[in-house]
């Protein structure tokens, strides 16, 4: 009798974990995708990163109940995955970035020529962002997400909030300099 109860309990617990995980996917898959895309700038790579993030969550599903802020925790997981992937991947040529941006950017009311020009401009900006030192670049990319406060960015990067602010300040100055003089690197 005890065995049957234990089996039923196990099954119920497993079902609950599965449901909790599916709820997390439903709620945060889009956010995680956007975070992944902002770094990888490739749709399929970003989707793979999201998948990997949830597989990691599945592996640590026993600790799900202990997590206070699931959103920041998940962003942190996907952030580490994308940084790791980017480190391992070869650098893509800039033309790939332009093509990908032209494909995914909203094109309402734009002619094909305007769209191409916009994509080129954004690709140029992103190339400048790439030239920033890693710490500054990371803060800059994460600060673009309106739903993330500086406290949450600090939690994702595992640094203090004041550190986030100072890095953001430095990043803005460096970026402005790079956009003025594209050849000046750091």
């Amino acid at each position, binding site marked *: 009798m005890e065995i049957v109860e*234990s089996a039923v309990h196990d099954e119920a617990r497993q079902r609950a974990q599965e449901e909790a995980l599916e709820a997390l996917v*439903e709620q945060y*898959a889009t956010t995680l995708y956007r975070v992944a895309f902002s770094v990888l700038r490739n749709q399929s790579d970003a989707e793979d990163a999201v998948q990997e993030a949830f*597989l990691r969550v599945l592996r640590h599903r026993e600790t799900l109940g202990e997590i206070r802020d699931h959103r920041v925790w998940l962003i942190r997981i996907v952030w580490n995955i994308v940084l790791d992937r980017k480190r391992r991947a070869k650098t893509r040529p800039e033309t790939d970035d332009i093509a990908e941006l032209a494909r995914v950017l909203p094109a309402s009311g734009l002619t094909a020529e305007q769209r191409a020009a916009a994509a080129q401009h954004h690709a140029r900006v992103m190339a400048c*962002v790439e030239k920033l030192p890693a710490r500054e670049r990371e803060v800059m990319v994460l*600060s673009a997400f309106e739903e993330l406060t500086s406290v949450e960015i600090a939690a994702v990067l595992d640094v203090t909030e004041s550190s986030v602010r100072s890095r953001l300040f430095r990043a803005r100055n460096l970026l402005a300099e790079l956009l003025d003089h594209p050849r000046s690197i750091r």
Partner: protein
Amino acid sequence: MSFSTQDELDRNAGSIEAEETLRLIASLPAPQGIEDRVKSGVRAAHRQASVMSWPNASANKAGWTQMSAMRVAAAAAIVFVVAGGGWEVYSHFRLATVPTAVAAPQRIDGSAGLSAAAAKRTPKTLDGPVVAAPVKHGSGEGKGNMLPQGRVMRPLAEKSSVPAQR
């Protein structure tokens, strides 16, 4: 407005422009059906994980593995089989006995150069030099046969009856 202030404003404008691009990229919509794809991937991985954690998975279907006695019995059976197999191998394994005598290779007699197979050929060597006892000379013998003191006369080596080796 001073030149430096104007310059600073221009720089800020550049930075703002860049941040707008970043914001635009950050707000791009995710592809359609991403949730479903991720969910199905997670479900597949979850099933795989359940198969891997065998005792818990099978407990849902049949609870016998939960019984600790059965687990102990299964473990004991495995140990018994492994140990029995080991003993079976050990008992059939015989240590080589230490030989009481060593078979020496057949010695070839010197009559012919050929002999049985595997026989070891050991050439006969000439006998070593034989030291002859010093000859005692009598008083009536000639002085010419006398050797100086301390010198020994060595006879010629005997001629061997063994034919020379080819």
